[in-house]
């Protein structure tokens, strides 16, 4: 095993969080920074040949190679976990830019109450309304503390939107950097109908630009062309903010930052309570030690948690006793298969972009009275024209058609193809003692390391919430003129077969004390102060809307703390 020259900071993972941290430290300090990315290099110019649904959206050409590493899944600790042999429920990214290359670009701020779910719910409804077996807790920071960093993150991306239309949005110190994107027909129907029923639709905050924009780093990106090849694709013109078009050009000028690809980090090395570096394997199979003064994990929710478990840092969560924190509070997204609407006129849905459309927050968080209801919290609801591609979307037929092949189905599916649309219901997923991550005792990855094991199932709170919200959205759908509306319930049991979102949270959660969390609110490990863990693994639970903007804001907050405090005087920040 070869030992490399020491770096001041080693960052594991070259996605949004890792590269943003590298860019900040590169620009604002003289620290030497090495980013270790296990996938391949990428540049903003890689996507000209990429408008192919089959290779990119169906065969998942840009995603993590599941043949080498996956995770196992079971519903409860009594069940036998089996490997997820093909990704479907969520789609982990890989390579430089990570999932940030093929994301959707929907960038809402979280509602202020999302950071204090436990406190606010108990205050308003009493502790007995918290679901059975929950492990909900407050984040330890407030929306107000994060607000300046939300503003900075929005300026980094050039977020398109308009303030003042959504009465539930937290106070903003600044207008969106760019005006809202143009709206397709389907979302425009939603806006009119939702408003007529007393809801408050607003253009969805979009990282696909409405107009050309120059960000504070001098990066210029063009306006979105609404080509319909957005989520699961890299942007051909660079209108969608991606690490390769927003961060890489800045990092390329920084002499103190190095990005090393093909470097698969297997362990965080540590001695006497301090991280000393990382051990990785390169693409040829050779092992290296990268010594470092500070180690930062930014390798997505699952791998961040797995690296702490494999490196034996902190106490693994034990669901039987409730002791230990590493791996607990795993949450996904209680996404229903969404409300499906059948219209009697064409929607021209091939046009669009990931965040092209409108959303309402009237049924999100605690924006409505749950007093008489059988659940707490809610859902971020969107109607988007996100580019309706034929392989994924052909074949949806009204329930009167009882077959899914043959002449009758073909006729109905051709008629329905451009007359069908879905509302997206991103339901909040609360944390439960029974949903967690640990290491699998049987299955291993291509390097011989144990796979992560996911134990996860749905609970009544989320089932009841989706039922309620879907019924409300069916009313909106009928007001939009849909002749038929389908509202599938949340599946009886969690599955890894149908896509929900690539929003997984928890495993290395942040909190107010070592007694309730792995990290302090600066995303610094409570016991190992030169170890930081960035990204959604720090979220105590899933707060409905898309997480990337909050991940960027938190990363900027941690970067400030390192530049202003830690670099001068290393040690615990809280």
């Amino acid at each position: 095993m070869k030992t490399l020259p020491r770096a001041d900071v080693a960052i594991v993972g070259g996605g949004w969080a890792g590269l943003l941290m590298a860019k900040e430290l590169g620009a604002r300090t003289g620290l030497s920074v090495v980013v270790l990315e296990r996938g391949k290099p990428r540049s903003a110019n890689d996507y000209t040949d990429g408008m192919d649904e089959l290779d990119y959206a169906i065969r998942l050409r840009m995603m993590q190679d599941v043949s080498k590493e996956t995770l196992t899944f079971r519903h409860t600790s009594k069940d036998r976990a089996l490997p997820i042999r093909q990704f479907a429920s969520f789609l982990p990214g890989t390579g430089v830019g990570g999932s940030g290359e093929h994301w959707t670009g929907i960038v809402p701020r979280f509602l202020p109450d999302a950071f204090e779910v436990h406190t606010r719910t108990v205050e308003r409804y009493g502790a007995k309304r918290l679901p059975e077996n929950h492990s909900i807790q407050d984040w330890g920071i407030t929306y107000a503390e994060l607000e300046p960093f939300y503003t900075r993150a929005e300026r980094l991306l050039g977020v398109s939107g308009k303030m003042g239309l959504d009465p539930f949005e937290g106070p903003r110190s600044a207008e969106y950097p760019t005006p809202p994107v143009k709206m397709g027909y389907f979302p425009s129907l939603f806006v009119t109908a939702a408003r007529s029923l007393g809801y408050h639709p607003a253009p969805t905050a979009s990282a696909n630009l409405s107009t050309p924009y120059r960000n504070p780093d001098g990066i210029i990106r063009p306006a979105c062309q609404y080509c319909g090849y957005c989520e699961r694709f890299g942007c051909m013109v660079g209108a969608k903010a991606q690490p390769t078009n927003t961060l890489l050009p800045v990092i390329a000028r920084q002499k103190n930052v190095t990005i090393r690809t093909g470097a698969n980090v297997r362990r965080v090395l540590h001695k006497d309570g301090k991280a000393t570096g990382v051990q990785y394997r390169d693409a040829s199979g050779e092992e290296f030690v990268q010594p470092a003064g500070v180690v930062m994990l930014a390798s997505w929710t699952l791998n961040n948690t797995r690296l702490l478990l494999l490196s034996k840092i902190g106490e693994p969560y034990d669901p039987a006793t409730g002791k230990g924190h590493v791996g607990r509070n795993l949450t996904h997204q209680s996404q229903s298969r969404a409300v499906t609407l059948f219209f009697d006129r064409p929607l021209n849905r091939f046009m669009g972009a990931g965040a092209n459309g409108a959303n309402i927050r009237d049924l999100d968080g605690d924006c409505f009275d749950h007093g008489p209801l059988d659940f707490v919290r809610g859902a971020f609801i969107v109607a988007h024209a996100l580019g309706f591609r034929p392989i994924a979307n052909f074949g949806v037929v009204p329930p009167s058609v009882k077959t899914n092949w043959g002449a009758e189905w073909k006729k109905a599916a051709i008629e329905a193809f451009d007359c069908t649309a879905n509302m997206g219901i991103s339901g909040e997923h609360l944390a439960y003692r029974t949903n967690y991550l640990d290491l699998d005792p049987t299955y291993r990855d291509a390097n011989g390391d144990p796979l992560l094991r996911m134990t996860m199932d749905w609970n009544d709170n989320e089932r009841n919430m989706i039922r309620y919200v879907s019924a409300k959205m069916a009313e909106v759908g009928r007001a939009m003129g849909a002749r038929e509306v389908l509202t599938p319930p949340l599946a009886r049991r969690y599955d890894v077969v149908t896509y929900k979102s690539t929003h997984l949270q928890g495993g290395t959660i942040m909190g107010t004390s070592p007694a309730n969390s792995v990290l302090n609110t600066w995303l610094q490990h409570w016991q190992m102060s030169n170890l930081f863990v960035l990204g959604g693994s720090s979220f105590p639970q899933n707060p409905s809307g898309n997480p990337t903007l909050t991940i960027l804001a938190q990363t900027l907050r941690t970067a400030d703390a390192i530049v202003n405090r830690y670099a001068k005087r290393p040690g615990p920040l809280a």
Partner: protein
Amino acid sequence: MRRRHFLTLSSTAVGGLLVFTLEREPMRVHAQTDRRIRVPLRFFDEREALIVAAAAARIFPSDSIGPGAWEAGVIVYIDRQLASPFGRDKNRFTQPPFEEGVPEQGYQGKATPREIYGDGLALLGRDFDRLTPDQQDAKLRTIETTYFFRLLRQNTIEGMFCDPMHGGNVDLIGWQIIGYPGPYMSWADHIDQHYGTPFRPKPRSLSDVLGRKVKPWEDEA
């Protein structure tokens, strides 16, 4: 090395059947000649190809509504996919042990797509392509719940609507019958127009748009 196999088709069967109209209605025209062409097969032999093609043509039949799997070249698409890394499960986690799970854990079988098709050919029988359409439908109904049928149905939809570089969607037949234009670089002047009325630009393939050939993933890996 395997002997080279060809699928012999008349030119009327691989496109040339449609002219594009601005409505979504495809219009049948007669092919100019009845030339026979030979498509080289990468995975199936000719008998196997005819059987799978016949099954795909019942899933997405050719009828008065418009052409189907046969004219779109779905069998050529499936043949190429099975010959590619997809066919041997290069992009699936195939570490043992293989154990039966619950449906929510997803497909846990050991069989690759090639092996699943092999099983499927046995289920369909040697004379499937010579049965009447009603007999073929009756046979397919008996295997509707098998992995083979589900994979065949999925692959048929893929072959109908993929970019033609993958072998299916010949002459953009699939996109024409549903009014899908394919990849265009920009809809910026149209996204907030045409509200409630059909906007049906002439379909174009990725090679049409870029003005050069693009290599599909199955030819790279």
